[in-house]
């Protein structure tokens, strides 16, 4: 579908038809005091060549560090076919066209995405994607408040070991809509949420319990016990999951007796490269019984008048262009292009390929843990199995250690001091299948070097 800008003649003809003297006249209902006359702070334009030079020099500053930071975004190998397909002209837009059914290829890709994510999470239905994992959680919280008709409290139990950014985004998005969050502590030696820590809430009106599997520390939660407790109180369960890990772990749809009500997560690990925080995409899946309260849209498979299969939007009536202020959310197609990358990634890997990525990633994380904890002054904090991430305690502040590693071309992990001061000097490190045994050895040697002088002193 071509996008062709108007020519000056088109513009003149259209203005003549409506009798307006110029484009400016179309904005005359905006009071002059509210208009910005010029954008003095915006510098003059650069030529394409100048922009290329500027960006290349900035890219050089980044270097090619060996990255052991995960913390919500993960470096995985992306088959070349993913992005060579995504950037084809037929797909290269983030949006569904306004007459969506005119673009059957786009709808088919969304349908396949929905099918694969629903299968991966063990849920019945998946929407056409969200902005990213954190806003997907915020939307899931709002959805739970709408859909859980047994609860009037809008109280959400949020574990402290959930990603700090997810907690911050959920609070920022929903805090002014009467939603209240209560923080659940984590077990200090094991890193997970003890089911017994929920006991004080027994018999109370709780709208939803959020469960991250794995949690921010990479540690596995006792999802069955947590889920069953929440359901016994009439609360919804919102699962926050890593899609790669689902190749190995029990899917949210099978947690406990009844399964999670809503499953959300960050789609970036599926075919999207690390890039300064985005654009990524979020996913949201639920059960059919809650589908009317799910934000966004759904694509369905149907038959046309001649009995041929085709794809159509089957759920969009609660979107903002129809329901205005009463829309379930401002989400529509949104991150269509990134979602397409995720679809292609999953299609190319298949269930077996994804399982191998997950298994090798787990293995590499364990190798990393062994290599680093062999160094004096480095200790593993939590004694429970997990996925992708490990929390390491250091015998001195983490920030200067990470800075010294960075000078050696290694991004060694995330300093947890700001978000989890109770852990003392600690960092969160990650290894996926992209880190070879040599890479891990390189990191361990560098860390030993960085820690050695101070120990000798």
């Amino acid at each position, binding site marked *: 579908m071509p996008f062709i800008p108007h020519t000056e003649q088109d513009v003149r003809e259209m203005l003549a038809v409506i009798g307006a003297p110029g484009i400016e006249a179309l904005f005359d209902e905006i009071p002059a005091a509210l208009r910005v006359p010029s954008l003095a702070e915006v510098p003059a334009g650069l030529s394409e060549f100048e922009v290329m030079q500027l960006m290349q020099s900035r890219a050089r500053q980044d270097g090619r560090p060996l990255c052991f930071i995960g913390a919500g975004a993960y470096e995985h190998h992306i088959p070349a076919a993913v992005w060579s397909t995504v950037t084809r002209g037929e797909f290269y837009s983030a949006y569904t066209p306004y007459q969506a059914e005119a673009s059957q290829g786009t709808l088919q890709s969304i349908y396949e995405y929905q099918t694969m994510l629903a299968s991966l999470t063990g849920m019945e239905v998946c929407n056409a994607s969200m902005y990213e994992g954190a806003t997907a959680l915020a939307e899931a919280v709002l959805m739970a408040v709408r859909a859980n*008709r047994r609860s009037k409290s809008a109280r959400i139990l949020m574990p402290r070991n959930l990603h700090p950014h997810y907690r911050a985004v959920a609070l920022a998005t929903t805090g002014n809509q009467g939603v209240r969050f209560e923080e659940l502590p984590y077990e200090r030696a094991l890193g997970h949420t003890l089911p017994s820590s929920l006991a004080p809430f027994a018999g109370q009106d709780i709208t939803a319990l959020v469960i991250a599997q794995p949690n921010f520390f990479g540690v596995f939660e006792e999802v069955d016990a947590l889920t069953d407790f929440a359901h016994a109180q009439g609360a919804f369960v919102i699962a926050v999951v890593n899609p790669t890990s689902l190749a190995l772990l029990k899917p949210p749809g099978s947690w406990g007796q009844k399964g999670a009500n809503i499953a959300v997560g960050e789609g970036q690990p599926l075919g999207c490269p690390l890039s300064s925080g985005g654009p990524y995409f979020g996913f949201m899946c639920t059960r059919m019984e809650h589908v*009317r309260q799910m934000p966004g849209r759904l694509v369905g498979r149907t038959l046309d008048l001649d009995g041929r299969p085709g794809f159509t939007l*089957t759920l969009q*009536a*609660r979107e903002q262009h*129809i*329901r205005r202020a*009463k829309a379930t959310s401002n989400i529509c197609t949104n991150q269509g292009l990134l979602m397409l990358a995720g679809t292609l990634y999953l299609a190319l890997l298949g269930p077996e390929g994804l399982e191998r990525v997950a298994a090798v990633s787990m293995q590499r994380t364990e190798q990393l843990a062994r290599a680093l904890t062999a160094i004096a002054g480095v200790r593993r904090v939590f004694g429970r199995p997990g996925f992708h991430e490990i929390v390491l305690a250091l015998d001195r502040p983490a920030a200067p250690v990470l800075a010294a590693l960075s000078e050696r071309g290694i991004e060694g992990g995330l300093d947890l001091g700001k978000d989890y001061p109770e852990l003392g000097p600690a960092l969160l490190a990650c290894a996926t299948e992209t880190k070879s045994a040599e890479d891990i050895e390189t990191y361990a040697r560098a860390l030993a070097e960085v820690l050695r002088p101070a120990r000798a002193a």
Partner: protein
Amino acid sequence: MSNIPADLKFARSHEWIRQLGDGTAEVGISDHAQHALGDLVFVELPDIGRALSAGEACAVVESVKAASDVFAPVAGTVVAVNDQLRHTPELINRDPYGGGWLLRLRAQPSSADTGLLSAGEYGTLTAEG
């Protein structure tokens, strides 16, 4: 020309109300409204016991292309909802004044049905529309 039973009263927002004679009244949407919405696929009904003021949004009827609020024609308390609509919302398309009823209200004694239209007045309104 849509079907407008003479014994009903209508709101300008296209709901009908039928006095059942026992202090309760039945509420639905008009034939004109169901026709304008098209094939209905989902109906969201209020909780029984909910107190409604006149003009308050109390249900949502959703077709393939739109979801619209249904407003209470008079003030009252919800005493029954049409559970059959949860699985067969198309009853509203087939029989808007009978099997497609939405809810029953016990009207507040003080609540007057001022502002409601007779069948004739509603016919004029929809003919203009």
